[in-house]
């Protein structure tokens, strides 16, 4: 944040004030932290046995890792499927045929407006038999809950991605389309050869932040009874009644995974992006704007 436009480069007086501010801020923050720790301690959250000790047990570690793997399994398949779903529906919304556009718009808007949990519950309660094969395919337990999680995530994230893709294609300079048509390309060729490759680079950040969303939302499997990371955590805290330590451990696993994912994305972005001059001039990458609108 050096050289922020919001404040002048501090002079000696300003530097002293900032130092004082820093100290005060630090004291306040440490105070809050200390209070939290004191509260936790007062209610015996730091007692090593069995609150924290259980996490050194190989059986518990295996349980957590299995849960973690189940989370990844659900999120990964859902991401792949929702990329497909998004691609199909984005191209439908960009189609020349009005009825295709209509159908796609209704589907996409519907799944974006309905809470994912409601969708999962509905799938779980109504389509258990149809969902079971999906779960059995990857050996997930219980298979119908896995199916509900994956399909629910796919419908929701796929719809969001469809919008991201569409926005990405539309954000490209008009000249690209016009030049493509001028060369005599058909629409499909234009998409495949000209628009999609450019848009994909722009959309990478938004796609990754959607992956983070999918990974987080797979925790909803907790509700329909899919044994993922959080559900595994539940086994632990039910047995040892150490809910706060467990929540912290599980949260840490989610946070690290998501940060690795985000880090990977910015690395990829740095290494693959040939910056289109317009986007650079505009200052903010288009993908970032879209990512902000899409993620949660």
């Amino acid at each position, binding site marked *: 944040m050096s050289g922020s436009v919001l404040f002048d480069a501090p002079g000696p007086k300003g530097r002293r004030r900032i130092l004082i501010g820093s100290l005060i801020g630090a004291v306040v923050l440490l105070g809050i932290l200390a209070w939290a720790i004191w*509260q936790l301690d007062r*209610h015996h959250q730091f007692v090593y046995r069995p609150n924290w000790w259980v996490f050194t047990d190989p059986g518990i570690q295996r349980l957590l890792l299995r849960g973690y793997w189940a989370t990844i399994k659900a999120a990964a398949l859902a991401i792949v499927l929702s990329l497909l779903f998004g691609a199909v529906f984005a191209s439908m919304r960009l189609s020349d045929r009005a009825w295709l556009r209509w159908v796609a718009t209704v589907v996409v808007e519907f799944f974006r*407006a309905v809470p994912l*949990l*409601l969708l999962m519950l509905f799938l779980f*309660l109504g389509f258990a038999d149809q969902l079971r094969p999906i779960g059995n395919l990857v050996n997930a337990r219980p298979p119908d809950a896995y199916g509900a999680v994956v399909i629910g995530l796919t419908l929701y994230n796929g719809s969001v991605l469809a919008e991201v893709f569409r926005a990405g294609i539309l954000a490209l300079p008009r000249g690209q389309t016009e030049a493509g048509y001028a060369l005599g390309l058909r629409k499909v060729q234009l998409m495949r050869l000209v628009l999609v490759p450019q848009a994909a680079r722009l959309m990478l950040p938004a796609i990754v932040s959607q992956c983070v969303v999918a990974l*987080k939302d797979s925790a909803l499997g907790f509700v329909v009874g899919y044994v993922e990371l959080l559900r595994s955590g539940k086994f632990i805290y039910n047995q040892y009644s150490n809910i*706060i330590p467990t929540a912290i451990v599980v949260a840490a696993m989610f946070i690290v995974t998501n940060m690795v994912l985000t880090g990977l994305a910015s690395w990829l972005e740095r290494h693959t992006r040939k910056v289109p001059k317009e986007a650079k001039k505009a200052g903010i990458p288009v993908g970032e704007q879209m990512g*902000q609108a899409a993620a949660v």
Partner: protein
Amino acid sequence: VKVLLDHYDELLKGMWVTLKLTGVSALVALLLGTVLAVMRVSPVPTLRWAGTTYVAIFRNTPLTLMLVFCIFGLPQLGLNMSFFTRAAIACSVYTAAFFCEAIRSGINAVPIGQAEAARAIGLRFRQVLSVVVLPQAFRASIPPLISFLIALTKNTAIAEFFGVSEATAHFDTLANKYESALYWLFAGVALEYVVVVLAIAGTGRWLEKRWRVLT
């Protein structure tokens, strides 16, 4: 359909709880998010760091986990609040991280000249922000704020599992009671959400147009 019609008052009541939870959480999250955004652009490194850490932690944690923590964990710390309050805390803390980012992007969208001009007439950081930059930043951040607000509306559905009886909760109980009516119930509850979401999106577009910063 009959089940749907028979229980429409329950369903509407559920929606009311959804709206209440959304409203309360949104207000708290907006305040907290603004404070965090200011911290993140402030000249004081400690505060910047604290804001960044907050966002990194809560943006990457599933809301379900936060709810587990608040609803089952807080009572263990001797904090006995109502279910609704605990759910609202989880939703606010989670959403504040997203609101913070929305407002920060709004701050970044304010033309540099505005802040420069404000500094040139001798305003301090606090004045630059509160008088010149933030009022414009809020307007610029309406679109992302609205989309996060919509997300929040839908996210409150997760609170149902933990015993807050809002719209999705009623779907769950009724669907378990009347299995044959599952499709109608889903359609009914989904429709409620679609209406609310469309209303929020519509208001957002209206506000956006009305409060657009003229340049």
